[in-house]
């Protein structure tokens, strides 16, 4: 009786510790980690063919029944659900095997959007991270991801988000200073960096001056800045308009070295104005000098 209890307990312990599923001719572990070594123990005698079929991978071994078959590290590396088939001359036995991703992150796929946005925009920058192991399997075990947005001036925004089903998402504000920000996602000792360009917004105002230039008027703006104090980039169009009598003259001038300037015909009593996009500047009434 005692020996019978011992045998039963031993059997249960073996089943629990090895997580083996008894299945006729072959014992298969319920799950293994991708890339790890493992053995399959078969029962009986004679020759058989062992197939392991899974995502993007098929293994075949000719085995001697009753012996253990060893699979070296890296034999199965794609995470997923596998089918184990043991085929003898007169039967085919089927088992199942799960291969899970390793827990150590090896690669981070980091999607940061957009690559360019105006300064001072709430939740304007988004980042999504997918964490993979060394075999490019998505790691679904929760892991903390650190997102960092570093401005050229040195200011840093940091958020820590735990992955859910292998991914993590965050949204951050663009800062008030233009420049190329470094947006980094870090998981363990693996990181990935993207560059997010923060560009000036609309000009906060346009101040224009006019002075005579021979028979014409030289119109010139002061350096244009947005409402955060950033210089509006060269190439931005400023539209100058001159209205006189029943006629008008207009010209679209790109900023050069921060200012826009143009010569326009001098008409006594002309009304001069400047605009850029939806921003209007000051008006000047031109009187004969």
């Amino acid at each position: 009786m005692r020996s019978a209890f011992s045998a039963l307990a031993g059997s249960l312990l073996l089943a629990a510790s090895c997580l083996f599923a008894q299945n006729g001719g072959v014992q298969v572990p319920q799950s293994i980690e991708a890339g790890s070594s493992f053995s399959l123990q078969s029962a009986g005698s004679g020759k058989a063919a062992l197939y392991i079929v899974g995502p993007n991978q098929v293994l075949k071994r000719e085995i001697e029944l009753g012996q253990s078959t060893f699979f070296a590290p890296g034999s199965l590396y794609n995470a997923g659900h596998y089918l184990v088939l043991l085929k003898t001359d007169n039967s085919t036995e089927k088992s199942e095997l799960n291969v899970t991703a390793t827990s150590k992150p090896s690669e981070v796929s980091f999607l940061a959007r957009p690559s360019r946005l105006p300064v001072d925009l709430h939740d304007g920058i988004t980042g999504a991270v997918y964490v993979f192991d060394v075999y490019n399997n998505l790691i679904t075990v929760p892991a903390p991801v650190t997102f960092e947005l570093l401005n050229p001036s040195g200011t840093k925004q940091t958020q820590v988000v735990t992955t859910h089903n292998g991914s993590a998402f965050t949204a951050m504000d663009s800062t008030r200073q233009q420049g190329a920000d470094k947006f980094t996602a870090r998981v363990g000792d693996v990181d990935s960096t993207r560059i997010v360009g923060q560009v000036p917004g609309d000009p906060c105002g346009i101040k224009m001056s006019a002075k005579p230039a021979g028979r014409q008027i030289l119109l010139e703006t002061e350096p244009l800045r947005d409402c955060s104090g950033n210089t509006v980039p060269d190439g931005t169009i400023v539209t100058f308009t001159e209205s006189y009598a029943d006629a008008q003259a207009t010209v679209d001038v790109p900023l050069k070295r921060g200012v826009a300037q143009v010569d326009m015909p001098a008409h006594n009593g002309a009304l001069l104005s400047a605009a850029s996009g939806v921003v209007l500047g000051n008006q000047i009434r031109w009187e004969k000098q």
Partner: protein
Amino acid sequence: MSKGGLLAATLMAATVALVVVGTVWPIPSAVAYAGGRHLLQSSSTPEEAVKNLGEDIHAQSWEKAYSSLANKAQFTETDFVHDLTGYYPSLLTYATLDHFDVQPLHSSSSDADMRLMLYWSTVVGISAVSRDLHVTKSGDQWHVAWPISKRPIVPPQVIPVNYLRWDVIYRGAGDDWGAQDVEAPHVRIVDMHPVQRAAGVMILGELLNEDVVPAYVSVTATLLAKDGSTIATDGSFDKISHLLLPKQVTPFLIEFPDRTLSSVASIRMTPFSTLISASADPVIEIDNEHLNPAPGASLSGQLIDESGQIVNVAHVLGTFYDKNGQIVWVADSYVDTALLPQTPVPFDIHIPEDLARKISSERAIVASYSAGGTL
């Protein structure tokens, strides 16, 4: 002879007879298409003289047209051809004369004034050019004096140009799939107004490039019925300035011929933008803009190329507003001659007569195209 043989002989004889008749007495249009003699061979009236000249221009018989002129000693044949087709590459350079009209202005026994309207077929449609000709009688023939336009001369010089230029590098095939591509320019429709015209539904509006990079833009509109079904979809085609520099605004017009606004429940607007390599040059001033009232309502003015680059094709787009600032019409016009630096070139945009009295202000922009350059 069998019946078949007789029929064959009859047909052959008839064919030979028709060929002989067609060769000896050809119809005028056949002569013209064959590049042969004029439709009107004599110039016994001022009108005939001008028509003959028009036919020669139509047939691009430059030598013949030039030799028929009364004042050919004042210029060369090359000058004459350039006067018609442009001294620099332009819309007229690759155009052919579609048709022409002759209108008498004044006539006496020894001289006459005639107006020759030349309708050139260009890649953007018909371009009408008017020339007032003086015709004089010499013997029993009339000869046209061609009013040669003075060739614009730009003195040899070096014009330094240092405007900004943008180039675009997109992500490569070998980049990490998560690496972001360069962001498309952000554009916004700042005004949109549908109107019902006799020709159909017109969608008028303005589009702003609110980004800091140049954008290639277009706008598509979809008319939707009350049940949500699509009535029609169309784009702005060339009724827009496709290149928008940062903070630049373009008008657009989308036409839906034979549609009625009453059947439209809503309109879906889809602006499109993509990055484009571009230059901030050339800068073109629009000077002396006048709103001319009906009849013959138009927006006229002059274009002045403020840069050093020759502009081969200039496209002027006008946005017209009522006294409340509401957009009421968008119209455009191509300039068929090249713009030379600091050389004014006139333009004229037609405005529908019924809208002219509603218009109280306007805004014009120029889209330019230079040979060998970007948009």
